[in-house]
């Protein structure tokens, strides 16, 4: 492996636009040289931003570094570019599996199997996800085994793979009932129920306000506080999503986080309908 890494590094130095960074990054990742792998993948991604394999490689490295939120983003991006990308489907399945959302994990693995029916890794992982695989078999190309201790709460499943699922994301129904996620204030106190109570009916009021103004459907509500920012979205007509972050997170970034969380919430709501 060391020889191959040297050879590929040399090739990449001679031709920085070469796609050998994919193989080189993967070898470095497998060898545990994550910082170097990270640099290689990121440089490659900058040169080939529309290459799904580059996003897949980068996501694997991020997952190895336990940066699951960004790994989710990268695999998500790979799928946007190439909806049948097996690596990204497996990667997302791994993240869903990791937080215990077996249903979503299996759905992604089934999609991967449709694309690559002969891939034994996918079949094995799918069997594991369905609970029928052989003991001790690693279900996915995971950076670490999935610990039984990571059995999630129901709410964690809604926002699988998203940062802040237990402290800064909240999903409510129209009456303010908590469907998923949780909120904690800066002192670490659980404020989920209090916030949920105040937000009951907000979705309907927002809808009435924009209707009265002839503005169509409301798509989001961003608010700036003196200690933090919040973003409200409506993943479905009768659900409300709240994202809370401190002021260090710019409003634009918060909107992106909310968009992803809303997508996850919508999928979750549809699967539980």
């Amino acid at each position: 492996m060391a020889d191959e890494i040297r050879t590929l590094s040399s090739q990449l130095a001679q031709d920085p636009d070469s796609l050998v960074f994919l193989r080189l990054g993967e070898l470095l990742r497998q060898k545990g040289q994550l910082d170097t792998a990270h640099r290689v993948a990121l440089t490659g991604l900058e040169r080939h931003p529309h290459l799904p394999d580059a996003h897949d490689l980068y996501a694997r490295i991020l997952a190895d570094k336990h940066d699951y939120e960004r790994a989710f983003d990268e695999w998500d991006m790979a799928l946007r570019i190439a909806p049948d990308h097996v690596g990204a489907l497996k990667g997302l399945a791994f993240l869903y599996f990791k937080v215990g959302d077996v249903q979503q994990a299996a759905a992604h693995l089934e999609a991967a199997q449709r694309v690559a029916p002969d891939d034994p890794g996918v079949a094995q992982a799918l069997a594991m996800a369905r609970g029928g695989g052989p003991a001790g078999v690693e279900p996915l190309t995971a950076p670490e085994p999935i610990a039984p201790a990571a059995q999630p709460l129901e709410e964690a499943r809604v926002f699988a793979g998203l940062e802040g699922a237990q402290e800064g994301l909240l999903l409510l129904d129209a009456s303010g009932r908590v469907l998923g996620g949780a909120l904690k204030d800066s002192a670490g106190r659980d404020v989920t129920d209090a916030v949920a109570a105040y937000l009951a009916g907000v979705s309907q009021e927002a809808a009435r306000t924009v209707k009265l103004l002839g503005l169509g459907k409301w798509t989001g509500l961003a608010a700036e506080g003196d200690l933090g920012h919040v973003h409200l979205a409506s993943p479905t007509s009768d659900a409300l999503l709240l994202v809370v972050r401190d002021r260090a997170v710019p409003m634009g970034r918060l909107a992106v986080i909310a968009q992803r969380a809303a997508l996850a919430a919508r999928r979750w709501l549809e699967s539980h309908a």
Partner: protein
Amino acid sequence: MTAPAAAYGKALDLITRVRSVRGAMLVSAEDGIVVAEQLMEGIKGPAVSALAASLATRLRRAMEAAGVGASLFWHLQAEHGALLVVPTPGGTLVVAVAEPDVNVGLVRLELLRAAEVVG
């Protein structure tokens, strides 16, 4: 409300001169009554102000409960436009109704300036 009535018009002028702003209002946060308005024809000021005040109250309470402090600015986004609001310390909401292509940063700035005038 500490500013004289003439100052209200000046405060609203700051907002409505921004491109793609359809109107602006000063609303009593407590009861949702319009204090002053410069709205394009067709916008139902009293109804919008009542709903905006109600929304502002819920939002303020939720934000305080969430530990993010008082609301400084909020922006209700919709398919065909937006409602942008800055609450003042004196209990007034400075409200703008805008087209979807509005420069939100600029309106926010003018809303904050208007809020300083209104107090």
